[in-house]
């Protein structure tokens, strides 16, 4: 296959001919009008472009979490993140996508079966048919899949530094193949929550972030805190993360990816209105993140007399999660407000969880679960199409379902193969125990450091 500057020339000519001729006589029935194709291209491009930004968030979670665990558990955390993204990709193909989107009706789930990607020529030809979807099916699948992967990423951070690899991955299989798709089907799949309650969750504050957060919370309760995190006297012993540069890098990656997460959720880019909406979403998304970060910056300074960078990073992310349920309707100042409350949530919930002895290593519960609830509940304030009741029903329904099912699965895993490493292994570090490859062998206690 040639690829030189002249290769395409032929193809282009040919295509032009088809189109020109197509608007002529003989082939008229087959040809898809160029304008229709342009719309198809824009919408597909939207999914691909925004999709790769969301895919990139997988790296963001990996870096954030690798930076917030101790060095003896870094390889494990990285392995989990590579693995969960891979598993999401496979499960969402095998059953997830169709469980979420096919045959949901106004019901509770669709049909679990593998996705098959249409042939491009056939798909393009089919565009002239009435009712044709105006984007490539593959691009839609890709965009939806990276959302599924995000949900799984959220869980991995909370449970870090003590969970065994394989039970975590098994849970990921269920989460990405079953739990997330079912919840998604209720709303994005057009199921009961959408039809009966007009629940509104633009890009997934609840469907993605709270889902991940509830699953993480259930896991944290079943798993228990890390050794030494809480004293018998109720004291809290912080366990500093090993690498703030990675944590910050991860946060910037997530921030960048979030433009795709929220912007792409407009689902179309084929009209001036749609692309204008995407632009507005970019601005609001950025504003909420900035407000979350600045709020945490100021509050940590006021409350603790020093600025805690991990809280600032959490603040930015909580701002992002908060705006995710409705990044389009708010005015810019309202987006700032919504994001700023995200920053407040982090300040309040992080110590609160410690009081409850719920050990959330990276702050995923405040950031994804609580800010996700906040973002969802505040939607009606800017979007008159949403109702307080509908939002409430959605938040509760998702919470009850995900939390309960997750709890059951975690218990089953605990009772069967066990979910927690031994005390000795936890002290030694999961990298030595399960991965066998140290993250930083030449530094600190590393085996090559002599």
């Amino acid at each position: 296959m040639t690829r030189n500057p002249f290769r395409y020339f032929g193809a282009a000519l040919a295509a032009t001919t088809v189109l020109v001729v197509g608007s002529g006589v003989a082939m008229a029935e087959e040809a898809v009008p160029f304008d229709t194709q342009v719309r198809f291209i824009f919408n597909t491009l939207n999914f691909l472009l925004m999709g790769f930004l969301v895919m990139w968030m997988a790296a963001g979670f990996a870096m954030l979490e690798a930076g917030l665990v101790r060095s003896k558990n870094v390889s494990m955390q990285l392995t989990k993140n590579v693995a969960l993204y891979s598993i999401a990709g496979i499960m969402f193909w095998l059953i997830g996508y169709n469980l979420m989107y096919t045959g949901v009706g106004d019901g509770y789930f669709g049909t679990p079966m593998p996705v098959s990607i249409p042939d491009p020529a056939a798909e393009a030809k089919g565009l002239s048919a009435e009712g044709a979807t105006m984007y490539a099916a593959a691009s839609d699948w890709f965009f939806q899949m990276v959302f599924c992967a995000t949900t799984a990423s959220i869980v991995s951070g909370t449970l870090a530094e003590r969970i065994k690899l394989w039970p975590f991955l098994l849970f990921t299989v269920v989460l990405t193949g079953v739990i997330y798709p079912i919840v998604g089907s209720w709303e994005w799949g057009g199921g009961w929550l959408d039809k009966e309650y007009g629940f509104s969750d633009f890009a997934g504050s609840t469907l993605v972030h709270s889902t991940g957060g509830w699953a993480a919370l259930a896991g944290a309760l079943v798993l228990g805190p890390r050794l030494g995190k809480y004293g018998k006297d109720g004291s809290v012993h912080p366990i500093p993360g090993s690498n703030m540069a990675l944590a910050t890098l991860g946060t910037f990656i997530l921030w960048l990816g979030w433009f795709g997460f929220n912007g792409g959720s407009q689902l179309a880019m084929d009209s001036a209105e749609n692309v204008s909406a995407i632009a507005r979403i970019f601005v609001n998304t950025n504003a909420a993140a900035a407000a979350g970060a600045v709020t945490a910056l100021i509050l940590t300074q006021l409350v603790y007399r020093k600025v805690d960078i991990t809280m600032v990073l959490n603040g930015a992310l909580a701002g992002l999660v908060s705006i995710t349920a409705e990044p389009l309707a708010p005015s810019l100042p309202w987006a700032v407000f919504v994001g700023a409350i995200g920053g407040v949530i982090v300040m309040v919930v992080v110590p609160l969880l410690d009081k409850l002895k719920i050990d959330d290593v990276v702050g995923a519960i405040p950031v994804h679960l609580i800010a996700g609830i906040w973002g969802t509940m505040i939607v009606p304030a800017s979007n008159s199409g949403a109702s307080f009741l509908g939002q409430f029903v959605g938040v509760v329904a998702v919470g009850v379902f995900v939390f309960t099912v997750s709890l059951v699965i975690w218990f089953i895993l605990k009772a069967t193969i066990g979910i927690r490493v031994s005390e000795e292994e936890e002290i030694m570090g999961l990298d030595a125990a399960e991965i066998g490859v140290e993250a930083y062998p030449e530094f600190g206690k590393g085996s090559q450091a002599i």
Partner: protein
Amino acid sequence: MKYIIAIIKPHRLEHVREALAAIGIEGMTVSEVKGHGRQKGHTEVYRGAEYVVNFLPKVKIEVATTEDMLDKALDAIREAAQTGQIGDGKIFVLPIEKTIRVRTGETDHDAL
């Protein structure tokens, strides 16, 4: 004066520090070391090839102390560091001929 060098398991450091504090010893210097002994290293696989990690992480505690405190200190360290598992470490006592506090120039007993 005596110089106590104790090689212990890293996660026992906090216990030892508390045990010494309990008998009034605050001053000490610690460092990361690697130990080799009866406790065998483990075999790892990296990219399909095996290798042995011969040296295990330990912490070294150095405490200068007066003769009269020596036995108490040794007991405190030993009890706090002990897990009963192989590799718990060793304590060595060396003689000190002179001790100086840098800040004041005080020597020996007063320097601690």
